[in-house]
């Protein structure tokens, strides 16, 4: 009886969490391995094709995106390399290889953004949020919330009191607040804000949605931006130096 209840709970959690109970597809694994061999033999285009095939069949993982980024870099496609490293980083922000490669390839960006102002709050938030995925933060804040509620229930029901109980209470409240703020910030920056990367070697940025508007400056592969809105075939974007402009959708990819 107990085991069947446990089984039902486990299945329920997996379904609710939308987890993938099956293992990796055999073809995807073998394709991944063969792509690795091709990469080793410096057949970067062929390796890239195999990795992309895995991605096109719906699979995603941080190592897959990381390897795609490597192939693109070796093929001198800087914009796509940055794009896939960022996609990999979203899935696994703790991987130093991803952030290392991202930093490395961005050194080859042919255009420099002048006047990038660093917001200390955003920098601080980014530094504490970056090691976590949004799902991990959501789990942490949920578990903390459950612990906090159980603690409150115990305090109320059993009428616990004293300096220790109060200290535990305050700590739990603070930790819960911090995790909730981090979750909200991560959700806002990673999912509410649509970000993109310039993938074309050159991409004109205009004052309006079309080439008939004033030309502002030339964007280049690897530049990251936030999308404010879309109109026709153009996005209104904000680059990291807060410069705004309209850019052709064909020259960019959404992260």
């Amino acid at each position, binding site marked *: 009886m107990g085991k069947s209840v446990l089984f039902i709970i486990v299945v329920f*959690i997996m379904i*609710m*969490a*939308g*987890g*993938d109970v099956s293992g*990796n*597809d055999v073809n*995807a*694994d073998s394709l*991944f391995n063969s792509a*690795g061999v091709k*990469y080793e033999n410096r057949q970067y285009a062929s390796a890239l094709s195999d990795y992309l095939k895995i991605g096109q069949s*719906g*699979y*995603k*993982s*941080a*190592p*897959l995106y*990381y*390897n795609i980024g*490597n192939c693109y*870099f070796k093929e*001198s496609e800087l914009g796509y390399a940055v794009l896939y490293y960022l996609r990999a980083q979203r899935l*696994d922000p703790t991987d130093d*290889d991803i952030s*290392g*490669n991202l*930093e*490395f*390839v*961005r*050194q*080859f*960006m*042919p*255009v*420099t*953004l*002048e006047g*990038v102002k*660093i917001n200390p709050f955003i920098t601080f938030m980014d530094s504490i949020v970056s090691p976590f995925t*949004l*799902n991990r933060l*959501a*789990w942490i804040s*949920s578990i903390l*919330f*459950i612990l906090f*509620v*159980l603690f*409150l*229930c115990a305090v*109320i*029901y059993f009428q616990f009191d004293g300096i220790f109980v109060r200290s535990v209470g305050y700590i739990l409240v603070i930790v819960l607040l911090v995790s909730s703020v981090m*979750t909200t910030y991560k*959700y806002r920056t990673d999912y509410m804000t649509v970000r993109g990367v310039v993938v074309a*070697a050159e991409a004109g940025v205009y004052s309006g949605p079309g080439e008939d508007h004033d030309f502002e400056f030339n964007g280049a592969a690897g530049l990251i931006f936030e999308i404010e809105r879309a109109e026709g075939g153009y996005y209104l974007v904000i680059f*990291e130096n807060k410069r705004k402009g309209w850019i052709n959708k064909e020259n960019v990819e959404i992260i």
Partner: protein
Amino acid sequence: MRLKIPVLVLLVLLPVAISAQDDYSISMSISPDRIGLYDQATLIITVTGPQQNIPEPNLPNLSMFEVYSKGTSTNISFVNGKVTSSLKYQYLLQPKRKGSFVIKPVTLVVGRNRYSSDEVTLTVMDQGQATSPEAMNQSRTSSGSRREVFLTAEVDKKKVYVNQQVTLRVKFYHTVRLFSQPEYAAPQTTDFWTDMLEPQRTYYETVDGRQYKVIEINSALFPTRSGELTIGRAQVTVSVPAPRKRRNDPFSAFNNFFDRGVPETVRSNPITIEVLPLPSAGKPKGFSGTVGKFSLKSTHDKSTVEVNEAVTVTYKISGTGNIKMVAEPEIGELDDFRIYRASSSEKISKLGEIMGGTKIFEEVYIPRRSGQLTIPPVSLDFFNPKTKKYRTLKTKPIVLNVKQAEVDDDYGSAVRFGPASGRVIDPNARDIGYIKSTPGKLEKGKPLLLVTPLYLVMNGIPALLLIAVIIGSRYREKLASDIGYARSRAARKMARKRLAAARKLAGAGKADAFYAEIRQALFSYVADKLNISPHGLTGDKLIGIFEDAGAGDEDIENAREILRQADFAQYSSARLPQEKTSEVLIEAEKFLVKLESVKLG
């Protein structure tokens, strides 16, 4: 009688149907019946029948030809009130080999009848032996002796090396007004890498004393293998004026006005080219097959740099030949530098009939150490078909003065990178990290926890639990602090306990104790509900309370009866029968239930 009309109709229509089937015919012809290997013949199948929906004929085996449909045409005629349809199918046959080919009869099945044509024979000969379509074109002229439209194809060289340019010049000549834009079908050029040269030219040229307007289309062809290669026929389809039988027609001017032309297709002759393999004598090691005449230059953006500062070296290959096929100069691994491909571009130029251009490769060299370092020369091998010799070009070595890097922490790397200011590569980074050997957990579209129902459940259940605990706690506090409330809430439970005890006493035959317990149950219940002492309560007071609470007369009477029986039993020695005690018990329980609905006090 009801069957008579359909039978009659059938009898009337049957002979018509039979006669209709009998009127079908099918014929097949081919024109011309003798062609060259690279020529085409038109197979015409004509089906005639009495109705418009003529069934489709069954074609014979034509596997020895490439078959292209030229479409169908329908003709309906009325002769002596009789309708006759004629459907003509036209197919273009291009032979795959020489020989005499018998095309079996084409058949048509209508109902149970089967019709078939005669067989035809097509003779395919070596090119030049047959009457070519051009010769046929010549016959269709306004004067009867000269061509009005024709197409020629020629090449500048008939003997070339592999990957050496051959210029194909296709000319469309016409002396008549064209009713449509000429549709050009390029020749088949298997085993050639092809690129169009300059846009088509239009000019006038005199041929056999007659001035023609010429449209010339030029292409550059690069053979990809040695041997005898054939450039197929080019083809132009255009509408030209229809031939007129009566030359002295006074209404010819009107005819010209209404003339929409007839389609005319002209084809060029196929051309065979001898392609020589590149000579093996003097062939450089690792030769990539570049043919033409090229120059190689290298430039670098700076000569003095710091360690890990990027130097961009641009290799420029220019010349004539198939520039698209020119391979990147081979650059080996260097101990002193890390090397990255920055970009490559090519610019094709077409100088008249000669194909050429420029190909630029940019390589980024990042010095690993300080000192005077040399970027070694790169080389380009190509075969020059004019001199018939291989040639190797080399760039000059590039000497760099590399200084130790000065680390400046005041700037983030983001503002220092870029070719304009020179790239500064992270000194600790040697190259991008190597690929991952395992794919990790490949997942298909795992949703965000935040948007799954699990998240709602995980956070909702504790919230509900907390609310329940708070409500429970407040209830408990009220019970503890408000005695009247606590007694009131416990009144029913206590009364039930007493009634249960009374039931036990009744079972034990203790009538006096039983009634005392019944009486106590009722008195305690009321006292608890009103938060008063049960000791001061009497039967009359209890009844008075019921009356004040607005209890019904029947209920009050029941209460009186229970109390009366209790008094009677308690103060008399008479033994009550068992069924009487049960009756009293049930009445007491009913009465308690009634009391629950009466608001006391």
